[in-house]
């Protein structure tokens, strides 16, 4: 792929130029050079009570690894991160550091926060798995734990449980492990090779992986409950649709489907790959979160002109600022304060009718409530519509679990350590919280693993 000199940004990480990267799926961010990493790490004040660590859902000892980088002990930096986080190359790329570790950094108010995400990625990327010291594993406990779903929550829980000496079986319904890291997040943000390498690290702990397994169907619930403990991390499920007329016509995708076709099934390589996708020449994406940005940026790479329609103001976009900036640089047109009311065309999409929205008094989310401006309707020509307005928890296993307490949206209700209403059954990630971030799911997996371990050892679980 053609690489041109990276453009240096405030965050010091080189990026491939938007005019180049929009034509391929190569990674946008290029990472830090060793000199850049050391210079950035050198800025760290090494706080006695580091706020950054409290901002990290998996509790990485940030000052320690940053110091190791500053002193050129790169391998030690990585080993230190791995103590708390077995997926650092993933987290360094997709964590919203600005609202977590970096947001808590004492320098963020004065100068600018240490670029912890880029440093984590730097330490994680160096070298690859070879030469990496194997992660230590406690003596075998003889306890068997089933982890259902191999996304960020499941992978983290599996790794933490295996480290503590439990025999872990990791069940995945798709043909490859990774969950949303694989089917959801595009290659240009999170290369699949990076994901696969980190999953290898988890499996190297002795975790037994079983793909193509629909737990509840391929493995009956009785057999699942025969494990000493179960962690359910089946993730987000069915995509939500807006419920406007025309959503069933050909050319309307959920973001889940569009991204799965490209990210998991490689429809960008059709017909070399067997799965097709409508590339579209004029694509409308509805929604304003990270998934909407991913869908819009993938559509750009497939060659379409892309408009993103969002009903609130630009400053209300829930996506990370960086993703919004990347999308804009890549030519995604933002149409804010606009809402689709009807999809036009039969049998295929020809356009989207939208209305302008005006912002009214603050609603319970603290943002102005959007209200339709009368007589403001307008039409965007489109041959493809991608709805990225959220998902509901995957219903497959939950509906088969006897006595499972569920929330309003069908999520499993859990306590702060991930315990469900069923003894010895724990849950975490999107299946418990609804759609959230990779790192929050990892944090949930880690907390639940600790609780499972404690419960198994204390005899609460057999």
């Amino acid at each position, binding site marked *: 792929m053609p690489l041109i000199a990276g453009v240096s940004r405030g965050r010091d990480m080189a990026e491939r130029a938007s005019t180049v990267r929009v034509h391929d799926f190569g990674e946008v961010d290029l990472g830090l050079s060793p000199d850049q990493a050391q210079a950035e790490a050198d800025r760290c004040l090494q706080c006695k009570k580091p706020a950054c660590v409290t901002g990290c859902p998996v509790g990485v000892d940030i000052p320690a690894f940053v110091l190791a980088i500053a002193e050129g002990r790169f391998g030690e930096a990585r080993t230190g991160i791995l103590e708390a986080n077995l997926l650092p190359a993933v987290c360094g790329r997709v964590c919203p550091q600005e609202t977590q570790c970096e947001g808590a950094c004492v320098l963020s108010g004065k100068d600018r926060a240490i670029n912890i995400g880029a440093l984590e990625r730097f330490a994680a990327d160096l070298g690859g798995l070879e030469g990496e010291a194997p992660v230590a594993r406690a003596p075998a406990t003889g306890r068997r734990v089933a982890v259902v779903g191999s996304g960020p929550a499941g992978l983290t829980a599996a790794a933490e449980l295996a480290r503590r000496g439990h025999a872990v079986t990791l069940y995945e319904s798709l*043909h490859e492990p990774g969950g949303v890291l694989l*089917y959801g997040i595009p290659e240009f943000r999170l290369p699949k090779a990076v994901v696969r390498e980190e999953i290898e690290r988890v499996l190297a702990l002795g975790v037994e992986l079983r793909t*193509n397994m629909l737990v509840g*169907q*391929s493995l009956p619930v009785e057999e699942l409950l025969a494990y000493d403990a179960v962690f359910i991390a089946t993730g987000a499920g069915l995509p939500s649709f807006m419920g406007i007329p025309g959503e069933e016509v050909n050319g309307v995708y959920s973001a889940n489907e569009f991204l*799965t076709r490209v990210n998991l*099934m490689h429809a960008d390589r059709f017909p070399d790959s067997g799965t097709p996708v409508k590339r579209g020449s004029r694509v409308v994406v509805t929604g304003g979160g990270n998934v909407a940005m991913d869908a819009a940026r993938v559509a750009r790479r497939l060659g379409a002109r892309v408009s993103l329609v969002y009903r609130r103001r630009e400053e209300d976009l829930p996506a990370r600022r960086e993703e919004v900036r990347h999308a804009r640089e890549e030519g995604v047109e933002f149409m804010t304060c606009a809402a689709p009311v009807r999809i036009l065309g039969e049998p295929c999409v020809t356009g989207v009718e939208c209305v302008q929205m005006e912002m009214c008094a603050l609603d319970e989310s603290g943002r102005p409530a959007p209200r339709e401006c009368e007589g403001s309707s307008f039409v965007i020509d489109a041959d493809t519509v991608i709805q990225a307005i959220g998902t509901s928890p995957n219903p*497959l296993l939950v509906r088969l679990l006897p006595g499972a307490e569920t929330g309003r949206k069908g999520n499993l209700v859990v306590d702060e350590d991930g315990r469900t209403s069923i003894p010895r059954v724990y849950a975490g990630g999107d299946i418990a919280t609804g759609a959230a971030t990779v790192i929050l799911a990892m944090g949930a997996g880690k907390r639940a693993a600790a609780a499972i371990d404690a419960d198994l050892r204390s005899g609460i679980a057999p």
Partner: protein
Amino acid sequence: MYSVVKAEQLADRVHELVVEAPHVARHAKAGQFLIVRVDPDGERIPLTISRAEGDLVRVIFMTIGATTYRLAELRAGDSILDVAGPLGRPSGIPQNATCVVVGGGVGIASCPIIARTLRGAGNRVIGIIGARNADLMILEDEMRQACDELHVTTDDGSMGRHGYAADVLKEVIEAEPVDQVWVIGPAIMMKVTSAVTRPKGIRTWVSLNPIMVDGTGMCGSCRVVVNGETKFACVDGPEFDAHQVDFDRLMQRQRIYPEEEREALERHHASHCGCEPGARHG
């Protein structure tokens, strides 16, 4: 990897594969489906589970697109990269009822397992199987064993009765009280045939076959309109109340990728010689 233990052509363009997949076979129930991915660049396609015994599961399919042609090339001893399932809700099985199971064309594949399960639950089962002509008829013997009574029809009269399955169904429901009906086949056949039971208000099930990707309740590709609401065939179905299904929308959504399917198929054929699909090459 899942071993193919048997591969046979049953009729013109209709093939049978028996695959070793214990995780599917041991738990499969009537009405469920599985997903296969043949090789690393392959697409995931859903296929109805036609039979499950021990560790073996049988699927029957018609060669239509690149993936089904690829499947038709497999021979005993070959393997399939991925088999996931069983998926979908099993058929709801009544007890001590009179049921009719209607299969059209390759849709007959789904019928014996349903008929057997119904009969096992103490129901009287009447089978009706229809095909365009005798060369396309499949599983007649198996259906005869599974049902208390079997009617065979062909559109051209080359086998059994001359006519459509719908014609026979109409007579059957006039002749005796029928509690529930299953109709499985191409979408247009299900639409036309299930209309027969509507005036009498007989509970009628159809098994829908929209385009799927993951098949596990994640992507939403398989959405269908039932009673005016969006449902997902992979987790809410695949069987739905026939009289509430929007068949026209189903058929339209089955035709999202005509150009792509043609391109993939031409490419598949171009990579082979001009022999019959499924022919073995040295």
